[in-house]
C-alpha cells in the first residue's frame, strides 16, 4: 500500500530566486495493493512531479511517503527500487553502447533467457529478433525507446509500477497491445499495484480508481463510471469500444513479424 500524506513540493519561481511556487500542494492519497489507479488531470497540474516524488527522483519539501508501512520519504531512488517501486519515464534515457538485452537484464536483476525477452518485447509490440542486439541510443525512434522503457518495467516486475504517460509517442497498434498488457497485469491480481498517468480514455477505462489532480491537489477520485462523464470524455459506447480507423496509415513502419 502506498500512502501520501500532506505532500508538498515547492520550486523556486526562477533560478536563484527565494520566491517559490507550489507544484504539489498538501496532497493526500492512498493506493491499496492490487489496485489499478489512473492519475489524470490538466497539463501542469503536478502529475509527473507526483510520480517523481514517489520514485524519489524529486524530494518533497514536506509531507511523507509511506510504502507498505515503511516511511520512504528520505530514501534514495535505488533503495525505493529495491523495495519494489518501478517507474516508466515519460521521456526515457538513451544509452550509447548499451544493448536492449543488457537493459532488460539490469531491469530484471539477472540474465534473462531469450524467451522472457521475447515475451516482454512482444508485450510492447516489438519483435525481439530485431531489437535485442540494438543499442538503446539515438538510432531508435522515440516510440521504440518508449516501448523498450515499458518493457524494462515489465522485466523488473515491481510491486508498485508507475507509468508516466506510457501512451505518449506510441502508435495505435502498439497502444492496443499495451492496453491488453496492462489489463493482463491487472487481472492477474497478484499483489501488484499500477499507477498510470494518462489522458487516454482507453487506459482510464481500465482503472479501478481514477484520481484527478489539478493545481497540485487531488480534486476528485472515483471509478470510471462515476468520473468519466465528468472528465469531459464523450461516451463512445461500450467500455471496450474499438477506436475508429486512423486516418493515416503507415503499415510499413509497424513490425509485423511478431
Amino acid at each position: 500500500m502506498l500512502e501520501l500524506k500532506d505532500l508538498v513540493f515547492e520550486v523556486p519561481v526562477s533560478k536563484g530566486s527565494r520566491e517559490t511556487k507550489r507544484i504539489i500542494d498538501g496532497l493526500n492519497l492512498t493506493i491499496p495493493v492490487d489496485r489499478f489507479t489512473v492519475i489524470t488531470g490538466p497539463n501542469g497540474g503536478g502529475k509527473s512531479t507526483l510520480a517523481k516524488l514517489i520514485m524519489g527522483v524529486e524530494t518533497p519539501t514536506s509531507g511523507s511517503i509511506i510504502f507498505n508501512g515503511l516511511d520512504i520519504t528520505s530514501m534514495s531512488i535505488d533503495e525505493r527500487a529495491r523495495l519494489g517501486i518501478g517507474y516508466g519515464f515519460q521521456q526515457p534515457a538513451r544509452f550509447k553502447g548499451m544493448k536492449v538485452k543488457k537493459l532488460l537484464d539490469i531491469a530484471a536483476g539477472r540474465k534473462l533467457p531469450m524467451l522472457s525477452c521475447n515475451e516482454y518485447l512482444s508485450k510492447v509490440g516489438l519483435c525481439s529478433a530485431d531489437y535485442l542486439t540494438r543499442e538503446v541510443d539515438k538510432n531508435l525512434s522515440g516510440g521504440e525507446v518508449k516501448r523498450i522503457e515499458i518493457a524494462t518495467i515489465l522485466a523488473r516486475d515491481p510491486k508498485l509500477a508507475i507509468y508516466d504517460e506510457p501512451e505518449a509517442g506510441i502508435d495505435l497498434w502498439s497502444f492496443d497491445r499495451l492496453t491488453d498488457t496492462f489489463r493482463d497485469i491487472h487481472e492477474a491480481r497478484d499483489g501488484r499495484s499500477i499507477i498510470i498517468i494518462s489522458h487516454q480514455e482507453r487506459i482510464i477505462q481500465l482503472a479501478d480508481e481514477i484520481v484527478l489532480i489539478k493545481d497540485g491537489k487531488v480534486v476528485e477520485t472515483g471509478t470510471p463510471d462515476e468520473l468519466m462523464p465528468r472528465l469531459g470524455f464523450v461516451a463512445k459506447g461500450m467500455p471496450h469500444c474499438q477506436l475508429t480507423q486512423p486516418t493515416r496509415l503507415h503499415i510499413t513502419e509497424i513490425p509485423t513479424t511478431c
Partner: protein
Amino acid sequence: MAVDLSPIDENLLAEIANIHGMPKGAFNIRRDGKLVERHSSANIEIATKTDNPGIDIRIAPGTRGETVYIPVIVTQAGLKDVVYNTFYIGEDCDVTIIAGCGIHNESHEASEHDGIHTFHCGKNSHVKYVEKHYGEGEGTGERILNPVTNVILDEKAICEMEMIQLRGVTSTVRDTNATLAAKSKLILTEKLLTHDDQMATSNMKIELNGDDASVQVISRSVAQDNSKQVFNPLVIGNAKCRGHVQCDAIIMGNARVTAIPGIEAASEDAMLVHEAAIGKIAGDQITKLMTLGLTEEEAEQEILEDFLN
C-alpha cells in the same frame, strides 16, 4: 614449453592478449626488449629484422582463419623499448592479429615501449587487428606507450582495427597513418580511458586514394580525474570515396578533452563527415539505472562500461 614466465608476466599477457600460457599457431612474445618465445606456422613466418629491432611477419597468400599473437610486456623499470614490427599480408587472406603491450612498473623510474607497426594488406585480404594497452604497478614511475601504426591497404582489402587503452598508462602519443587503394575499407575503433594525471594524444592521418575506398573512425573515450586527452584525426579524400569520423567523449572530474576531427577533400566525389561530442554522463541515464535498483556508483560504472564496450 619450458618458458620462464612469472605470475606478473602471465597476468599482463592475459590482460592484453587474453592468452594463458603459450598460444597455438604463430606467435612472438617479447619481454623487456628481448624475445621470450616465437613460433611460426605453415602459412605465417615470423623472422627477426636485420636492420632494426623487431620482426617481419609474412602471411602467405590465401591464409584463412589463422590468428597471430605478438604481445609485448615490460616489467623492468627504466627500460625504453623500441620495436619495429612489419606485417606483409598476402592476397586473399583472412587473418586476426592480436597485439598489445602491458607494463608493470613498481619503481619510480619510467618504463616505455614504442611499437612501430606497419601493415601491408594485400588485395582482397581481410585483416582484424586488436591492440590492447595496459599499465599496472604501485610505483610512481611513468608507464609510457607511444605506438605508431601504418596501414597500407591494396585494392579491395578490408582492415578492422581496434585499439584499446583502458587504465594504467601514464602517457601515450599514438600516431596512426593509413593509405587506402580503390574499394578498400578501413574501420578504426579507438577506446580510451584515462585517469589521475594521465595524458593521451591520438593523431590520425587517413588518405583515401582510390575510388570507392571508405574509412570509418570511431573513437569512444572517457577522461576522469585530472587526465587530458587530445583526439586529432584527419581524413583526406583524394578520390570518389567515403569517410566518417565519430568522436564521443565522456568527461568527468577536472579532466580536459580536446577533439579536433578534420576532413579534407581533394575530389568533388569525396563524401566526408565528422561528428564530435564531449559531455558528462547524462543525469537521466544514472536516474534510470537507479530506478532499476543500481546505486549511483554502480550506475556510473555500468554506463562507462557500455560506452566503452
